[in-house]
């Protein structure tokens, strides 16, 4: 598991570019999904986030789709990767740690994997919402504010 010390800017750049140029979870899935729409008055990003839990209460599938910049594309896609197979509580913890990181607070790097590529977001404060748009949306779904 990489920690913040081991991750170089080159690696972070490669991770973001990889998910930006070939996102794995950018699609509108068929079937029963919890979903939520998220957009911002401050930017262009305008996305839907989709989540499906299995009978054991674990995330079976996660996806997102919409108009998004490089930062929101990569951060949304990496989030979907991270959520697969996680319980609601685990998902909530991952999002909480990520938000701590984004806002330069102490955080547990061990659960964030590739999402650590966004650790410098606060340097470009105007991009915080790009790096968190899907994360906030999933958080709303987990609170039960979704529509099926």
């Amino acid at each position, binding site marked *: 598991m990489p920690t913040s010390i081991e991750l170089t*800017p080159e690696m*972070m*750049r490669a991770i*973001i*570019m990889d998910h930006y140029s070939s996102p794995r979870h950018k699609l509108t899935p068929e079937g029963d999904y919890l979903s939520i729409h998220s957009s911002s008055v401050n*930017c*262009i*990003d*305008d996305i839907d986030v989709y989540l499906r839990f299995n009978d054991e209460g674990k995330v079976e599938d996660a996806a997102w789709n919409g*108009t*998004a*910049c*490089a*930062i929101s594309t990569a951060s949304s896609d990496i989030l979907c990767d991270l959520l697969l197979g996680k319980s609601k509580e685990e998902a909530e913890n991952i999002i909480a740690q990520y938000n701590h990181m984004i806002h330069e607070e102490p955080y547990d790097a061990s659960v964030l994997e590739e999402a650590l590529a966004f650790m*410098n*977001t606060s*340097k*470009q404060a*105007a*991009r915080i919402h*790009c790096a968190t748009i899907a994360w906030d949306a999933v958080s709303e779904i987990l609170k039960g504010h979704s529509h099926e």
Partner: protein
Amino acid sequence: MIDVKKIRQDFPMFYNHVQMQGKPLVWLDNASTTFKPDCVIEAVTEYYATETSNSHRGDYDLCYAMDKKIAECRERIASFIGADSKEVVFTSGTTASINLVAFGYGLKYLTADDEILLTQAEHASNVLPWFKVSEMTGCKIGYIPLDKDGRLTVENLRKVISSKTKIVAVAHVTNVLGYIADAKGLAKVAHEFGAKIVLDGAQSVPHIKTNVKDWDIDFLAFSGHKLCGPTGIGVLYGKFDLLVKTDPFMTGGGMNAKFDMCGDVGYLAPPMKFEAGTQNIAGILGLKKAIDYVDSIGMDNIEAHERELKAYAVEKLLQTGKVTVYNANSEAGIVTFNINDVFAQDAATYLNSKGIACRSGQHCAKILNDFLGTVATVRASFYFYTSKEDVDALVEAVKTGGNFLDAYFN
């Protein structure tokens, strides 16, 4: 010719050497808002420091002096746009001005048989109030087709206007593409069909000479803050007879002549009828100074300077071979572009990391499909204090814009 270097000595945002991301600020977002010269800031400060009083609310000298000053401001603003002072209504800005026409005039007179004509290039402030009028009266919203470059032409208005058209509401200069419409020609055609023309002057009044009488405009809306004035102050011009027919959007103190508890109310005549409550007095005083200031530079000089900068920017940007420009032929000082293969917002963040303020934005679906072929663009917009060096900084930055994630790591 405009001496940009000298002019910048009047602006604290320049002489204070404001920085962004540790770099000298390059301000290319003038279509969004503009910097304020000392004279405007002083007028605002003066009001609070030595002239404070309400207007129309007292029998003492300070208040009398302020009433006189506000009247002078109204005269000055009226002469700037070729109107009479009784036709100048103070509002909080373009949005409030257009809403006042929509709700005070549109809602009162339009019916389900009528039609409002807009274009696909309008700012939300000149679309949503009319949607509301349509929703409440049942009237139709129609669109004047733009030509292949996205320009509004008199010819195209003529193609769609009919006796059902009651209002033609269009931007004089569009905020994304920067084409200057033929206001006089549009008004003439609108009037031939008995329609009123509402001109959104937010992007035109600060940049080109305006004459509502010569052009025969029915209503004109503009904002102070895009004209070196304070935020929160704007103007609605309306032909006096139309203002008489327009209902106030807000009622209250300062706009009634008399009322009793039986519900008999008499409103003051325009423009006072529309100015309920205490007005943005500091804003009005600041706007007057701003108009004095831009007029001293000369509207023709301002327009020529921006036109030159626009041509220079388009030429230099295209020379890099790294950008797509979407409005190379438009007249106003607005360049809408993308750095090739970089999403607009990523480009704007990258420019921010170089100290350059540009706006990235998404445009309404129709216009982007028809004219832009992209979901989002970056906009650089100029004013009389913008220099060729500012444009050069932008051009240098876009040359390395492919490395846009640098903004994220360095």
